[in-house]
């Protein structure tokens, strides 16, 4: 018992610093984002800005904190380097993609999981087979399709390209979920005179909320972090850039502005980290479900 406790203590002594080192790049970014740029540019090991003393945490000294912590980096990033615009684009892009993906997948999953009809097996087979055909890089035809539709000068182009990928995982999750619901649900609704649409929208769709939540979280994080498609559709159009692409333009234009870069990175990371921490359960269940499928 004592031996085990000693073993566990040694383990904690090694493992806790390991975990801190693991997320240190994130702490570093946070620290640099409130340093003055000259301090950030010359590289400092301290996570806290130069001139910080513990006594500043006393309420009467709070005014000094604002002088030491350069929160102005955030204002600069937001207004001057147009991270405000990038953030707005990313929010619109992510939310729209999530709404469309959920709609597409819930409709598909309901039809596949709840009903049988001629051609169902062909449909499922086609979706699964395309996972194995070499896609090569299909981005050129996708880019051409969006350009031909005349959508490459608005956010709609990248939204459509992002929604267009086959979301096999979500379809399978919805299909399995709907197939597992008891049969009498629909029969009861039908006896009350509800048609196909009513049954779906007032009974089945609300019941599928757990899968909707999982899809929303996974797809939102995926779209927020998406880079390839936004890059292709907005590299020469700063007004359409998302946070990732905007960061790339920012660092190539202002390579020496490390503090501004860090503030931009925090603006990019913070919403998604918060979302992940709050909705961790759905996220973990979703991806655990993926590997079990």
């Amino acid at each position, binding site marked *: 018992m004592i031996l085990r406790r000693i073993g566990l203590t040694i383990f904690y002594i090694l493992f806790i610093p390991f975990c801190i080192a693991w997320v240190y790049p994130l702490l570093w970014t946070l620290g640099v984002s409130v340093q003055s740029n000259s301090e950030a540019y010359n590289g400092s*090991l301290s996570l806290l800005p130069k001139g910080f003393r513990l006594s500043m945490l006393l309420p009467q000294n709070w005014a000094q904190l604002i002088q030491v912590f350069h929160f102005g980096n955030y204002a600069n990033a937001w207004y001057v380097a147009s991270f405000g615009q990038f953030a707005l684009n990313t929010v619109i892009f992510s939310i729209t993609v999530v709404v469309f993906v959920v709609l597409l997948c819930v409709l598909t999953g309901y039809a596949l999981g709840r009903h049988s009809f001629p051609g169902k097996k062909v449909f499922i087979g086609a979706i699964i087979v395309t996972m194995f055909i070499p896609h090569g890089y299909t*981005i050129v035809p996708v*880019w051409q399709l969006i350009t031909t539709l005349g959508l490459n000068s608005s956010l709609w182009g990248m939204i459509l390209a992002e929604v267009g990928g086959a979301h096999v995982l979500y379809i399978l999750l919805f299909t399995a979920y709907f197939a597992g619901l008891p049969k009498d649900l629909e029969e009861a609704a039908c*006896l009350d005179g509800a048609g196909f649409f009513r049954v779906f929208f007032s009974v089945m769709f609300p019941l599928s909320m757990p899968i909707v939540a999982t899809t929303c979280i996974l797809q939102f994080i995926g779209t927020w972090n998406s880079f390839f498609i936004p890059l292709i559709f907005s590299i020469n159009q700063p007004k359409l850039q998302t946070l990732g692409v905007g960061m790339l333009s920012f660092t190539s234009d202002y390579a020496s502005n490390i503090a501004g870069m860090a503030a931009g990175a925090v603006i990019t990371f913070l919403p998604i980290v918060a979302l992940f921490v709050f909705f961790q359960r759905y996220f973990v269940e979703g991806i655990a479900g993926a590997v079990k499928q």
Partner: protein
Amino acid sequence: MDIGVVSQSAIEHGGKRLLSRQQKRIHLFCYLFLLPQTVMYLAFTIWPILASYYYSFFNWDGVGWPTDFIGFQNYQGVISDPFFWGAFQNSFLYTIATVILVVPGALIMALILNNRKLKGVIVFRTLIFLPVVLTMAVVGLVMQDMFGYNGFFNRLLMWIGLLHQPVEWLNSAIIAMVLLILIGSWKGFGIKVIYWLAGLQTVSTEIYEAAHVDGANVIQRFRHITVPMLIPFLIVITILQTNESFHVFDLVRTFTNGGPFFGTDVVPLYIYNNAFGSLVPRMGYACAAGIVFGIATLLVSLGLGLLARRFGQRNTL
């Protein structure tokens, strides 16, 4: 399916026909529900696959419709381009290295986090997982600064005393490649831990207890219960990691952009640069490169699948 609700009299008077009409209506609704997904699927999955094969036979700069048919010249160009093979080699190196680091590493981490005696598992799991949700492109840019001349790592190593003056880490192709592999592994590590944890949790505790009662020790239990039950997960996780690593783009584009002098170029970046990065876009050429790489990665996946099957059979014998 069978939500056909028919009144009693309807069943008496030729209900069969009514029922089938009802059923037809349901089929129609099903097709209606599948329609949006089908349209998107045809437009953004089937058409791009077919079109990229078609375009690969043209000399085409992406303006208008391709007209300059050149047969297999794009393919010949790809196959005889040393930069393509350089990128190809880097892609494979990156993939093999990340698989070797991540797949067993994540298993060890999952075994640690699966230990019931450990306190604060959720906090540890959250921390280990955190890099996964970060935007890869931004991570690449942050890391570029951390490994820069005045960056964090030079300062740290000088403070410890391992370095006397700063080093330009990213000026060496070998070091840049090693860093890419380490950062890529770090970034995708957490998700594989979750996969392994899902796998470990399918091994029921009853089997363990039974084995414990029969006198099997920790190592025997791991060898004879955990390992065989985890093999399907090993295969799936290896395939997922392989796939992810073959398609690495964001990190390479932002961290090294393929440099120094194409030393860390990978095939997705090579394709991107041919299609979108140069003054004269070579769309057809990019398609051909994509197809050559697609076939190579498919062969690897098939190989892994066959290996898995053979391994699975031997295990059941």
